[in-house]
């Protein structure tokens, strides 16, 4: 297994917010999410606040916000009054920003911000880049905790589950299990003690949706969890977060403390009899812990190995008690659904996939970043209109969705709408929402080998099909990329992939053959080129010259 040492530790700082005494004429929203933070975004906040004060701009507010979405162009600063977005801001050169802030007219209307923002629909991420992630007042000011308060005041737990059921919300962790069904199972399960767990163990390489949500709007997750806890009669909650996300962990801990102090967590929330508290548990770099039974083992302080289901965690989970496990994004949708109504949420989407989905765009794409779109938008709209197309105008080759359990979708299917069902039909998987775009410089056999290497490394070793199968599949793929394989090897690979898919214990093993199947389905000619002609069409793999038989 690869080692994951202490990643960048966040510097704890006081909120560097210059608030205005009177009316705010203009504000500067400085993105302080991980990607911009690594480019000294915090220095921008500090310097900008100081320079505004020095320039006598007393009616300007400088605010730290969460992810502004367009990570590729960070660090970012936005002036919401005019809609201006400043990209690649240097902490030492803020003159342009100060000038722009001086010229904001009172009551200005924001100008359109281009297709990257216009085509998105923000539900789970509606507060992202709008609120200070460490300010409860800011969250409440944008409608935060309205949903929880109205739930506690006017609704029964059955009614809450009914609203979620009508909204059509499905699990955003990837598999798309109907959220209301899971909630109902937990609510009806027998047991005095029940738990709610937020799965924030976002392990898919190339996916950073959950991290951005946690860093940008942590109170929303706490509110969503509290509503879920009310609906399933739970009193304790855990957020299982990767230790590789130090900023998200720090912000969550701050949010929990502030929410406890304000009476939104703890005993007698909002002066009712409802009691619910949340703790953060750190992951320790095991991909398999995203699987719910492995996650539970890890929260209990054990090795994160999955166990056979049933019994499902909804019946027998943490410490043997009924446990509700939902993904970060699922919880982020809950407050919005209860505030705006199930009909509103159900009106968005396609077929059985209702609502929106957050995607992390990465790879060879111009606008790397975080986007949220209604279900049913086509891949082409996401990649070309929002994502800005391929870097250097190179030809699009494939988009990889669903992480190591997903697949690669070629150019022919760019006009397919994105939903749980269509992605499965295309041989891929919704997954947690990573979209990695590849151009003609990517070799698809090498990509399959890369994912198999990942699965081999991350396999927990409990069941044989996964432990042995992923290693053997990796070796076969490695042989192909070295030009040392025969057609028999390819047949063995396909047979083995089928066996692993059918017999592995958990999602990791069952999904491991997916990248192989999908690349074989759409790019079999590349496999043939490696095996028969011993060339790598993309020029990625190093194939030693053929020994000429005399």
């Amino acid at each position, binding site marked *: 297994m690869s080692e994951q040492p202490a990643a960048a530790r966040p510097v704890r700082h006081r909120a560097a917010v210059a608030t205005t005494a009177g009316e705010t004429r203009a504000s500067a929203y400085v993105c302080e999410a991980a990607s911009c933070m690594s480019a000294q975004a915090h220095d921008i906040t500090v310097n900008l606040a100081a320079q505004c004060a020095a320039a006598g701009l007393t009616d300007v507010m400088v605010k730290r916000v969460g992810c502004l979405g367009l990570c590729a162009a960070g660090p970012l600063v936005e002036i919401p009054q005019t809609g201006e977005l400043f990209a690649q801001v240097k902490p030492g050169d803020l003159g342009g920003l100060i000038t722009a802030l001086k010229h904001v007219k009172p009551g200005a209307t924001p100008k359109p911000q281009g297709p990257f923002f216009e085509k998105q629909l923000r539900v789970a991420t509606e507060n992202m880049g709008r609120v200070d992630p460490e300010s409860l007042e800011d969250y409440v000011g944008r409608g935060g905790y309205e949903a929880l308060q109205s739930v506690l005041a006017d609704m029964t737990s059955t009614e809450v589950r009914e609203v979620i059921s009508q909204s059509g919300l499905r699990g955003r962790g990837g598999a798309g299990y109907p959220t209301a069904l899971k909630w109902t199972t937990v609510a009806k399960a027998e047991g005095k003690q029940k738990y709610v767990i937020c799965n924030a163990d976002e392990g898919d390489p190339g996916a950073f949706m959950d991290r951005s949500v946690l860093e940008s709007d942590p109170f929303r997750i706490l509110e969503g969890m509290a509503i879920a806890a009310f609906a399933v009669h739970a009193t304790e909650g855990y957020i299982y977060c990767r230790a590789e996300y130090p900023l998200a962990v720090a912000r969550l801990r701050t949010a929990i403390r502030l929410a406890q102090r304000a009476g939104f967590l703890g005993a007698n929330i909002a002066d009712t009899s409802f009691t619910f508290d949340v703790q953060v548990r750190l992951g320790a770099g095991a991909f398999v812990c995203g699987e719910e039974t492995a996650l539970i083992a890890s929260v*209990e302080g054990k090795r994160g190995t999955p166990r056979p289901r049933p019994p499902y965690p909804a019946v027998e989970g943490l410490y043997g008690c009924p446990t509700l496990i939902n993904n970060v994004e699922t919880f982020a949708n809950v407050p919005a659904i209860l505030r705006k109504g199930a009909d509103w949420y159900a009106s968005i989407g396609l077929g059985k996939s209702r609502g929106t989905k957050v995607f992390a765009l990465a790879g060879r794409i111009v606008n790397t970043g975080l986007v949220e779109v209604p279900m049913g938008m086509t891949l082409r709209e996401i990649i070309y209109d929002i994502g800005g197309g391929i870097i250097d105008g190179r030809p699009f080759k494939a988009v990889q969705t669903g992480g190591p359990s997903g697949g690669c979708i070629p150019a022919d299917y760019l006009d397919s709408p994105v939903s749980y069902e269509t992605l499965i039909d295309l041989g891929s998987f919704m997954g947690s929402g990573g979209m990695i775009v590849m151009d003609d410089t990517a070799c698809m056999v090498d990509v399959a080998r890369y994912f198999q290497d990942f699965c081999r490394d991350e396999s927990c070793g409990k069941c044989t099909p996964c432990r042995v199968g992923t290693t053997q599949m990796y070796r076969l793929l490695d042989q192909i990329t070295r030009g040392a394989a025969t057609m028999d090897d390819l047949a063995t690979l396909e047979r083995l992939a089928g066996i692993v898919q059918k017999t592995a214990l958990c999602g990791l093993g069952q999904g491991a053959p997916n990248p192989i199947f999908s690349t074989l389905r759409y790019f079999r000619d590349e496999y043939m080129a490696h095996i028969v002609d011993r060339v790598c069409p993309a020029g990625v793999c190093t194939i030693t010259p053929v020994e000429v038989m005399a």
Partner: protein
Amino acid sequence: MPVLHAKPAPPSDDKRWKIVETRMRRMGDRPYALIEALHAAQEAFGYLDESALNYVGDTLGVPHSRVYGVATFYSYFTLKPQGEHTCVVCTGTACYINGAKDILAGIERELGVKPKQTTPDGKLSILTARCLGACSLAPAVIVDGAVMGKIGAADLVAQLEAM
């Protein structure tokens, strides 16, 4: 429920053991605090040696074998001391297709260290990470806690040599 086993004394009078002890006590010195305790020990000492593993196990009432099993299962924990400087190379998908392979090859060629190895003089450890979540900066590396994005092999090696 009272803890039935006697609490052991820390391996040394190093003050950092207090941090570890406090973290375990806050969770009631119960077995489920194991991962949190290992995090605390690694944060304090940089790595987990045998005395740390045994101390944590004895305090929480977890057999040494199970502590070792947990510490070696999770890739975040390391049982070896790290070099003076660390360089983490992200090998997530976005970084991989943007040239993380070339970075690792460059480091191995120029500095003679592979991932998970430390230079003979103990100056530099090279590590890999599955995904730092800094995909917009791909290929990304973390040198001594500072993220560097969109970096080439030659630039990185030059910087590492300068340290």
